[in-house]
């Protein structure tokens, strides 16, 4: 239920694996919303942009949250909509953690930007986040 991407997926991980296809669709769709949000925000607050984009849209089952780094790498978290324990603040901190971890990945000299992320450290961060959240 976590994805980092710049329109092409860098990393996708979902907890109930059987519905993976749906997640992919959801995430893919959410990118349009991200795009829209960015273009809307960009005009008004180009410089002091908030990275967290908030709830992108709710589907009948999931809530989709978005986050975009300054280098336009997007993070999307999809949460079951029945999950009420996750408030905006938690999501926000999850994104921040993700972003930090992602930065670490990018700092790895052996990582080729644009390749799918295959970092154990990143994996574990995501796993712990998922365990906590879901």
């Amino acid at each position: 239920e976590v994805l980092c991407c710049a329109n092409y997926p860098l990393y996708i991980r979902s907890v109930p694996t059987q519905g993976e296809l749906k997640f992919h669709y959801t995430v893919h769709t959410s990118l349009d919303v991200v795009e829209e949000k960015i273009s809307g925000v960009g005009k008004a607050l180009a410089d002091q942009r908030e990275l967290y984009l908030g709830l992108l849209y709710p589907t009948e089952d999931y809530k989709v949250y978005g986050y975009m780094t300054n280098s336009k790498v997007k993070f999307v978290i999809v949460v079951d909509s029945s999950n009420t324990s996750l408030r905006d603040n938690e999501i926000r901190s999850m994104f921040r953690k993700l972003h930090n971890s992602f930065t670490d990945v990018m700092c790895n000299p052996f990582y080729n930007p644009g390749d799918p992320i295959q970092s154990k450290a990143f994996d574990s961060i995501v796993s712990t986040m998922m365990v906590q959240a879901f």
Partner: protein
Amino acid sequence: MEPHEEKPIIYTMENKPIVTCAGDQNLFTALYGSLTQQLPREPMEWRRSYGRAPKMIYLEANFVQFKEELLPKEGNKALLTFPFLHIYWTDCCDTEVYKASVKEDMQRWQAALRLHGSVDWLIAVVESDNKKKNKTNILPRTSIVDKIRNDFCNKQSDRCVSLCDPLKESSRSQESWSSFLTKLRTLLLMSFTRNLGRFEDDMRTLREKRTEPGWSFCDYFMVQEELAFVFEMLQQFEEALVQYDELDALFTQYVLNFGAGDGANWLGSFCQPVRSWNGLLLRRPIDMEKRDLIQRGEASLLDLRSYLFSRQCTLLIFLQRPWEVTARALELLHNCVQELRLLEVCFSPPVFQTCLGRFWAVFGACFRYLGLPRVWGVLGVFRTSLGHISDKSGVFLGCSPYKKLKEALSSVEAFEKHYLVSVRSLGDPQSAENFLLDSLKSYVSESWSLPLTHTRKQIAECQKQLQKMDEYLQTSALLASDTNLSEEERRHFCQEILTFASQTAEGKGQQKDARVALSMSSVTRLQELCFRPSSALVHVSAALLLELRLCSLMPVPVTLEHISASIHFTEEQPGSTAQKRAAQNPDGTVTFPAASPASASALELCEMLEHSPSDNTLSSAGLACRNMHLLMRRNDSATSLDTPNTALTALALEDGAQMLRASDVTLSPGNNSIVFTAPPGVYTLRQLCATLGRVQLVLPHLYPVVQYEVYSQEPQLSIQPLTVSHLVCVVVSEHLLAGLPQQVKFTILTGHYSVKKGDALQLSNTDSMPVLHSSTRSARILSSSAELVAESALSIQSSEKVTSISLPVTPPYHTLEFLLDVLCHIPSCPARMESERLTNGQISHRTRSRTRFNSGMTLIDQKVSVDCPWSIYSTLVSLTFHVPFKVKHSLLSVGRRKFIQVCLQNVSDTNFRLTNQTLTENQHTPSLELLSLNTTTHSLVFRQQCVFSVWELRWSGVSPVSLHCEFSASFAPADAPDAALKPYRYHFTLERVSIRPAEGEQDCRTGALCRLEVSLTRLSEPSDSDEEYSDTDGLRTTRLLYEVIDNNSNWAVCGKSSGVVSMPVAAMATHKVHMEVMPLFAGHLPFPSIRLFKYLPHHASPVIPPDTDSCLENDSLSLDDQAETASLRSRGSVQSLGSGESAQPRGPMPKRQAFGPGQVFNGTQGQQVLVLPAADHHLMEVNVT
């Protein structure tokens, strides 16, 4: 509430708060117009309860006549029909009249109001001057107003207002109007606050009861909607919307709770099966039908939802926020879908269709308000929703409300396209396919593997329905190799292909091209190509095997009828293919990059080195981008092989091309290898094609370019010096040495020619280089891979002119090697001094190819003409021999004794043994004796070292004018036996040195004229280009300029000191010139120095000094016998004056050119002449070499 006649009117948006009017109806009617007009003119601040923000509102009112039935009965919650204010109008100004009738009427009115608990009333007293004037008995102190206040408004004096002359245009009337209106507004607001507050309290109470059994959402809905209506009526749309939102939220919560198992009875009505859905009407502000349904508790979920939504939309539009409509529409759709599911509402497919249609109509309506920015998001989400519904209902829907929807959405064309996404499952597979292909493109470009697979599956379905077999098979091929799919699915798609392939093309007999070409890259991955032998370069008779390594992505083994690789003949120089094969590893494998969109975009650079074909020197170097054609093409026209419809057009088979074939190949899942055998020629691999019944798998381009060469070669002969350094520990130079037997290696590359029995090489003999016979000679035959095949004896026959070497039988493409001993005689006259001249830097171009300046070796070129059996032409082979020695001689004098020293320098890298060094005189001059002073007869001369030997020259009587001597020695390599000694001869001539006294005179004397004889002798024949010739009387001559100068003032040259002589071009030609000199001192004087120049006639001088004076500065120089310096000068001056000699105004001047050092040997250099105080005669000889 009972149905009311006015109700439809009430529910229009022209609703206004009701204000009743009692009392004098005529008066009111008169005032009505200005009242309704002026009331909304100014806003009023509305302070709200519960800390809600105050609002400025413009009040309007619907003034109706007071009737008792207008007053709300107990328990009636209808707010819209609620009269908020009651006004009693009177224009009574007469106390009597008041007391008589008006007061009573007012009391009745008040009683009626009190009965219904209404406290919002107002008495308006209209004062009119006209009326007052008519009445004379006016009480000045207490007016009617006061009376009324006294009677009715105890403590509420503001409930009675007077209005002065309302119909007049006076300032007083204006004033009273404005205060009246203010009062009216205030009271109205007070009434609102009070009544609405009470209503809200009631409503809240009702809401708190929602857990009680029997509570109905519908009832509550009606109540809260009343409030919303009132707010709407007051134009407080925001507030109204809040009411609906609250209702929405409440309902949603209920449904969610229901889903969680917390059911409520009233929800039962919503659980009824959906029979129909009539859609949304956003045009009408209020959909009364639905409202009635809700009121009766008969509304379905969809009815309620759509009613709510339509109300919300209406309000949003009033609020001028239409964009929220779409957002809410989206939510609505989700909610509906989710709630239907939660409530487990079942609905039949036709209903569902209509419902979907309605959904879309909603969208259509929404999108009319807006552009399409959110289409994507909406649709993406909606697609999943639909997926849910279809899953849930388990219905695959065949036909669609496509047309209806299209109409609904016709205003937004782009929408139609996207709309098709979700109607994919419902309708026209054609448009669905198109759409899916579009979305597929985006998934491919962004590498979303799972959606990609899913979309492809859908496409496959569409294509199957559409009977697009080509495309379907292509998609199936992709799906069959898709690891995201389950094994079963993959098998299914693979089977689809196989089934099609095995079908005979009976039904399509008319169609010639019943075959279907699929992209091979979707099914298999070409991993490697391996050449055996690895060079990919073999000759015709050898076998070049080409092994393809294919990785099959199919889930099952596939048996191909045959697989073929089409090849393209390349007409190129064999040498230039080297860089083309740069992709090949040294072990002969070509690895094909895995096709991925990311790797395709990387630049693939390679080094390009071009060697010139003649001498293999580098002629150009550079970097080339090998996949430029991929990178440089326009992006929009780029087609990916993954999109089957575009790739298919590119899958044209190259017809008529040559093929490599392999039959009956089974491709099992995983790695396979296929071996081809290559035909002769230089070929580039182009395509791969696998045939599988009617299906052909085609790989249209092989990249990187792979080339191989099966060549046919002309026979070649080469002769090289044999390098023996690896056999002998002595370092042997790689040069052939003259004078010693040398081995040369003959190498014959037979090429396509097979050497037959009796074939022989014919070598033309030359005297200077005989071929030596040796008893055992054998030839080695090597295969093309340098393996020794055979060794056979070689027979050599020699006749006078020709040496014939009969070759052993050799198959084509083999190498034949044998050694031959040759001896190059050292020419006996090394006085050509060629090497010396070369060291002087005067290099003529002719000799460039055989130079070795630093070693100073003399080179001998030997040309051997070889007749080969395979050619009618003779092959001219040039061998260069090096003379190992360089000999110098010098004449040494001690007093009258003369010694000849010969210095033999070994210029080669071989050590030599030297014996029998002898010096002989060729002319056998009787009185001459050469006395050897050498002690050893044997000596070793190491490389680059010298050996000196000295002889004393003794003679009796007159010394000879010249001596022709010959130095000879035997030499052999230092480690060779004595028998190997070879003679070495060196001829030289000593030109003598004579002092020939003048006739009758013994010695020269100072002051007296002496005769000086200058003898110029040519010692060598000139080489062709060295000197200029002039033909005079059939005799070739060279013109020399001599000059006798004495710089030391020892001699005075009398008469002509210089002149030009013509030397015949023949060795030993001598020219003698006599002149007179006078010694100025007595004693041993050195000879005057004589300088020699080449005299170049004017036409031969390429560089002409512009100034005559600078050209010839020497006064004493005359250019020829006749031309005196003075005349030349005068001529020059004439020229400089620019006189009439205009034919050649700058006539080229003759030029002198100095000889190089060492070219002139001065015989009297360093010699002295004894000059006595008396006159003496001298004779001097100058030798020119």
